[in-house]
């Protein structure tokens, strides 16, 4: 690297100057940066940025381009916005949009409330830290399994002769087993349950990290003021967790909207297309039916909707930065 030529004695002197300049420019609370040869940073971030340009950004642009073209005929022909015009009139697209709304809203609420509940338990005072860490490990475990495995585990539990129906029929004495994945109204709830089981640990751990970062003095002060546990949760814990909760709900919405594998393993969009989300619809039209152009149009529409969400989120994040909430 070019640094080898720099005389070691000269470096700290120039370093100090830039450091002071940088401090005043970016304010306190920023990590200090190495002062030498500012431009050299590009050597380090360059490979990753190039990789993203070729493997993420270029295909992203291709998605948009492909949505304007009909490719299945062999020879690509430009069709303009015809795919989008068809899309607006496609009842199955609207069906998938309303399904993904149900799927995402219920999943996100369940992920965060379950994550919050268990994180609060783990954040309590435990008589034995090893036991607490062991429990934490057990509670994270569902996150480790692949969606394929989780889907199969739950298909077995949901089976007409599986464990859940054993409880329903065998223990509760009901007449007929419940068809968890085959009843239109119930299938979505069953898929949401699996998604909750599979993904809550991630949010639990992040919330736990947030809880541990809340200074104990605030709780002490609240106790002195006579706030009970509920009031402390409502007036101390929740406001302190606000930036984290905003971040994880955004990330959760976007992850949940993108789920294909879970639905592929559990219901394949059925019964009666009641669990077909937008993401599964893309997979189905583009890969199973070979309608690449139309799939690309649905993808582009999904990208636009998510981009709005991401921009809103990054806004909130930057504002938080100015207010000193995050150091991003």
């Amino acid at each position: 690297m070019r640094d080898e030529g720099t005389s070691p004695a000269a470096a700290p002197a120039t370093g100090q100057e830039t450091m002071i300049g940088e401090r005043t420019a970016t304010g306190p609370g920023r990590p200090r940066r190495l002062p030498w040869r500012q431009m050299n940073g590009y050597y380090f971030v360059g490979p990753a940025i190039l990789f993203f340009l070729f493997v993420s950004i270029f295909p992203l642009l291709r998605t948009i381009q492909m949505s304007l073209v009909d490719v299945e005929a062999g020879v690509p022909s430009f069709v303009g916005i015809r795919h989008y015009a068809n899309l607006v009139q496609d009842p199955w697209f609207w069906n998938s949009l309303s399904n993904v709304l149900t799927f995402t809203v219920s999943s996100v609420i369940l992920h965060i409330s379950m994550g919050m509940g268990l994180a609060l338990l783990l954040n309590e005072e435990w008589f034995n830290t090893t036991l607490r860490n062991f429990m934490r490990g057990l509670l994270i475990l569902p996150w480790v399994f692949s969606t394929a495995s989780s889907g199969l585990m739950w298909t077995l539990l949901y089976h007409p002769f599986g464990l859940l129906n054993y409880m329903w029929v065998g223990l509760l004495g009901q007449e007929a087993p419940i068809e968890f994945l085959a009843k239109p109204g119930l299938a979505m709830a069953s898929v949401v349950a699996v998604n909750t089981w599979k993904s809550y640990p991630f949010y639990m751990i992040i919330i736990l990290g947030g809880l541990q970062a809340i200074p104990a003095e605030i709780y002490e002060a609240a106790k002195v003021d006579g706030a009970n546990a509920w009031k402390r949760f409502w007036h101390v814990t929740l406001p302190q967790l606000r930036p984290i909760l905003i971040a994880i709900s955004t990330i959760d919405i976007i992850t949940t909207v993108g789920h294909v594998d879970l639905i592929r393993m559990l219901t394949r969009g059925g019964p009666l297309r009641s669990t077909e989300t937008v993401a599964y619809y893309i997979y189905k039209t583009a890969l199973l039916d070979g309608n690449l152009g139309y799939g690309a149009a649905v993808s582009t529409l999904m990208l636009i909707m998510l981009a709005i969400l991401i921009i809103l989120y990054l806004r909130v994040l930057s504002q938080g930065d100015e207010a000193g909430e995050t150091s991003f």
Partner: protein
Amino acid sequence: MKRASDFRFKHGYLIHQIFVVTLTTLSAIVILTPVVWMINAAMRPIKEVLTYPPQLDPSQLTFEYMASLIENELYRGYFVNSSIIALSTLTIVIVLGLLAAYGFSRFKMAGGRIMLLGIMALLMLPTVTLIVPYFRLAHLAGLYDTRLGLIIVNSAFILPICIWLLKGYMDAIPVDLEEAAMIDGCTRLQALQKILVPLAVPGIVGTGTFAFIFAWNEFLLAVTLTDTPDAQPLTIGLAAFFGQFVRDWNSIMALSTITSIPLMIIFVLFQRWVVQGMTSGAVK
């Protein structure tokens, strides 16, 4: 849980402890039931999986199904593919991620903030929005149905979170250590190698575990970009097996268990660092 804290004041420490431990244990039991059920079904003698009442007698367990799957060359192939894909992805994202995280953490660059925001946005990009162009481009580039193709696209989706996690770690390591080493005559790369990387090991292990689990479990890209067992990972093998032998729950669960064993081992070994990485990322 909130009531529990009140009890601590009124009735003492013991009741609070019993409440917290019991509630956590009950949650853990409910949450782990599907996993126990999978392993149980994988080891039940035939036809005992779906009987009333469910069988749990441990003296009847058998390793027959798992053994026959391990002996089957097709499934060994899936296993090898998954290992190659996950380990190569892991290597790529750790190398590129470390370099980029170092750059973002230690240099002030024109456009650095924009690039970081861009990476933040890529972190949230859903895989499904890119499967159409990937399908097409992989055919054009001759990467369709190859492990290399899968490794490249997997890396693109895992790298953003790796950069983010590793940058968090590096920000927490004081710059003075590197400055001292460089004053003593180390080049920047030597300082990176000898000072920063050893200090960042917990972060690298945590991020690496994260990346491995991600790559090992990836499904959608694999189903998009592969067609034959030559390049397909275990997740696809599992789905194909399920489609083919819908009633053979013993073998399905045996294969699912085998697929999950490496993950469970890795997770038990590295859990501490994964949790550390995720929590410190959140606090920032």
